[in-house]
């Protein structure tokens, strides 16, 4: 998508401002879910992701066309989300739902409704406690199913770093979730 994005941006910079709709529609879902992962709240995620698009649009003249737009935009969005989280100490509720019962059962055995609710809440709290660099990588990989290659492009680090960050993040997470995982 990199070259394609940059062609659209070139058009916008040459005055075809409405072409920005293409970029927004291409990345809106990913942007919303990234913000949701940081805030845990629908309204805040919607507002922050839209604000990021507005901020990117207004800074478009500073964008280096030899770079990847998705990575540049991700940095804007992440900074906005981190600023927001810093000001609002509330971490929101677990923004996810169980969609694959068999996978869950295979890992934890059968769970009652109250246990499932508790498990979602604890998982969200433990992930929110991780350092930002580890939290973002866990959310991108396991809750948005983004490949290592794509993550490496988004956060601007080598594939090896993605893998080792995921390793340390998962190691911390499994320690902090001992009570749930070893029941």
């Amino acid at each position, binding site marked *: 998508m990199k070259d394609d994005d940059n062609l659209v941006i070139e058009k916008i910079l040459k005055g075809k401002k409405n072409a920005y709709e293409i970029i927004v529609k291409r990345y809106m879902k990913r942007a919303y879910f990234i913000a949701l992962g940081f805030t845990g709240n629908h309204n805040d995620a919607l507002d922050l992701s*839209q604000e990021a698009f507005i901020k990117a649009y207004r800074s478009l003249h500073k964008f280096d066309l030899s770079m990847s737009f998705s990575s540049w935009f991700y940095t*804007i969005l992440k900074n*906005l989300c981190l600023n927001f989280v810093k000001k609002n100490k509330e971490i929101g509720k677990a*923004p996810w739902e169980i969609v694959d*019962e068999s996978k869950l059962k295979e*890992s934890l055995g059968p769970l009652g409704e109250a246990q499932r609710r508790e498990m*979602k809440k604890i998982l969200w709290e433990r992930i929110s406690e991780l350092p930002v660099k580890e939290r973002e990588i866990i959310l991108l990989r396991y809750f948005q199913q983004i490949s290592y290659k794509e993550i490496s492009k988004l956060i601007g680090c080598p594939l090896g770093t993605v893998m080792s960050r995921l390793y340390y993040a998962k190691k911390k*997470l499994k320690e902090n979730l001992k009570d749930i995982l070893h029941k």
Partner: protein
Amino acid sequence: MKHEEYKKLLVGYLDGELKNKERELIENHLRKCPECQKELKEFKKLRGVMMSMKYQKPPDEVWENYWKSIYNRLERRISWILTSVGAAILLFYGGFKLVEDFIKNPEIALLLKIGILVLLAGLVILFISILRERIFIFKHDKYREVKR
């Protein structure tokens, strides 16, 4: 390869993200390392829990109105900027005329005129000082621009 390096490969192995050569390496290592076998089992459990969940989807209207909402916000900001600039020009002109009439009025005592002018000069300097401070803060805000 150090043991810690093998351990890092465990995550990529479970996610199906290793190259053939790396996969062979870790599979050979796993056959003879109970510590890594244990860690792999624990990682698999954690991965299973996370992969069983997905973000709650917002209503479809959110996507339908998403672009329109951004467009409106962009447009509204431009109208706010234009309104503010217009108001500032009118205020400046009005203020200038007021001071001009005040100075030209022969019925007002000279001392009063000097007092008012000194007060106005003080306010202008205060305004410029605050404005300069704001610009300095704005320029040094680390989240203002995207840095990579």
